[in-house]
């Protein structure tokens, strides 16, 4: 029961190792779970999980292992101790630190304490979905200062059971694939950085000055050079509104990460809705339009183009001329897909970042757009690959 649980977690790439198992053994030894499966749920979660992204994995693993199962306390703890003993001997991937932890831990002692506690509670055993029962001895004695009982939501025992809690899958929204913070994005975007030394405004070349001065037998010889300047120009175009709303938060993070990056020579941001037609807009509210043809005129092929959107739309929006109902002017009626191809052709390097999970990329307009642009998922890995792609020379 316990071992499958641990492996279920590991299969979900939750980093559970000896460090966590030892801590859990200690907590169980101290009786922190108060002898109930519900208590075990909270204790195990606090100890085994280190990030909200894994809370959903924990819930799923917990359900898979414990739902509808009569949990037998003795077996669970036996397994935990066996696993720990074994871990010490034959887990090759143990870090030195984990090994030291296991050395420090005396499994026999732990086991003895655990067995004692089991004995004490034999008579109170209640079976069912409860671990040992709900009225076991508690590790919480009354030392000197007495704690005041605070206000607690739901009250003890009235809260939902562990299985119900896990089943609610409250943390599905925090899964790794959905979270990406500004700083991580900034780090990924740093790869886009290139520098040149051109132009006026001389600055002191310290190393050059030292070298020259030394050569000059200590007579000060000042050397200057043009300052290092960032040399990358970036155009960021984002789809907003409609089906992009669920990703608004993610996109605004990408936006601020890009804005905060001080290493671009120039950054232009534009917005569009669903697909690009003749114009893109300078504001999220679709004011201040700029004609795409003018834009291509202003910005040479050396600009790096980053498109952001879910690429999901009704096929006619992509495939028929002026698919947008708003677009009929300037004799520039062309299909959405044609506008996208124009953009892609113009720039030497471009990518499309898609917040939609990759498994939904087939059999819809995403597939069409991905055949025009090199498409990457808007995840940390995806962003990393995208920036690498943007930096390749062509």
């Amino acid at each position, binding site marked *: 029961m316990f071992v499958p649980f641990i492996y279920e977690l590991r299969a979900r790439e939750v980093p559970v190792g000896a460090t966590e198992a030892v801590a859990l053994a200690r907590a169980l030894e101290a009786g*922190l779970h108060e002898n109930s499966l519900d208590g075990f749920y909270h204790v195990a979660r606090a100890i085994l999980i280190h990030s909200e992204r894994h809370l959903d994995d924990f819930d799923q693993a917990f359900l898979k292992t414990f739902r509808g199962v009569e949990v037998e306390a003795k077996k669970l703890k036996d397994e935990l101790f066996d696993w720990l003993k074994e871990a010490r001997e034959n887990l090759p991937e143990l870090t030195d630190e984990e090994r030291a932890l296991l050395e420090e831990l005396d499994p026999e002692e732990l086991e003895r304490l655990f067995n004692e506690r089991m004995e004490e509670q034999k008579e109170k055993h209640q079976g069912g979905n409860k671990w040992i029962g709900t009225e076991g001895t508690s590790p919480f004695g009354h030392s000197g200062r007495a704690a005041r009982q605070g206000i607690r939501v739901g009250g003890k025992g009235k809260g939902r059971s562990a299985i119900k809690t896990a089943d609610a899958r409250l943390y599905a929204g925090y899964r790794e694939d959905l979270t990406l913070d500004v700083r991580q994005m900034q780090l990924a975007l740093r790869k886009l950085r290139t520098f040149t030394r051109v132009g006026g405004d001389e600055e002191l070349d310290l190393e050059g000055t030292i070298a020259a001065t030394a050569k000059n037998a200590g007579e000060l010889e000042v050397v200057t050079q043009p300052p290092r300047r960032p040399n990358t120009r970036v155009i960021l175009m984002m789809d907003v509104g409609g089906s992009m709303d669920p990703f608004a938060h993610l996109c605004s993070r990408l936006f601020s990460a890009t804005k905060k990056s001080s290493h671009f020579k120039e950054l232009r941001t534009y917005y569009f809705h669903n697909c690009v037609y003749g114009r893109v807009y300078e504001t999220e509210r679709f004011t201040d339009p700029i004609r795409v043809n003018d834009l291509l005129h202003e910005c040479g092929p050396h600009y790096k183009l980053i498109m952001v959107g879910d690429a999901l739309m009704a096929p006619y929006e992509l495939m028929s001329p002026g698919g947008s109902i708003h677009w009929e002017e300037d004799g520039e009626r062309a299909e959405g897909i044609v506008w996208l191809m124009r953009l892609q052709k113009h720039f030497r390097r471009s990518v499309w970042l898609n917040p939609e999970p990759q498994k939904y990329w087939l059999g819809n307009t995403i597939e069409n757009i991905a055949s025009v642009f090199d498409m990457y998922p808007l995840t940390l890995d995806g962003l990393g690959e995208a920036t690498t792609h943007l930096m390749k020379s062509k």
Partner: protein
Amino acid sequence: MSQPFTRFQGTDRYLSNESLESAVNCALVLERPLLIRGEPGTGKTLLAEAVSEALGMKLIRWNVKSTTRAQDGLYVYDTVQRLYDSRFQDKDVSDIENYIELGPMGKAFDADERVVLLIDEIDKADVEFPNDLLNELDRMRFVIDETQREVAAKQRPFVLITSNAEKELPDAFLRRCVFHFIDFPTPELMEQIVHVHHPEMEASLVQQAMETFYEIRSMKRLRKRPSTSELIDWIAVLKAAGVTDVKLEGNLPFLGALLKKEQDLVAFADQLTGGRRWRS
């Protein structure tokens, strides 16, 4: 570790639940730091006060800023003061100890009783900051280089570390901590929190204010969604101004207490008037 200890069960001013209490108690018993993550306003900082109050342990705060270094938490050596004093003859500049000031972590180790050490908003500091703390958090001791004095914890403090949800902490750091993620309060919990702060408030106004609050929170494209503190402040101004009912409409009274960013006020107005301006 096996001796009985007093467990944490919340206080009459701090609402808690089984899962939060469980995490606090794990950290207390295992003597590991407790890492609390959650959106701003979910009561992370307040938890330190609650634990300190409930268990009668002194609270030592360390508010992390972008410039904070790990060393600041241990001690600072005031060389400038020493140099300054050396110009006059009235102070004993030969004793460096006079110029060593323990930081929050140093004080927590040096205390005679077990204390609560709050390391608040760890994500504000440099990326390397948590790594720099690892050693001292583990060993709970350090040596003052200048005097060779060792400061060692007599009782391992209860270390509570808070972080706003969005920042990654290094793995090695995470694995040493007991972790708890505080959810944004459900309306039921929020009602109780509001009640703790405004006990004599009229139920109908609280109800209306809460409904409006959650509706605004669910709006799209907000850069900073209002949180608990904003709601509590907003209700306080409503009360002070004698407002008796609120409805979600254009001229919502004291909207500025809930939405503080210009763009958010725009987004709010947009969504309220035009409904959805884009088809999907």
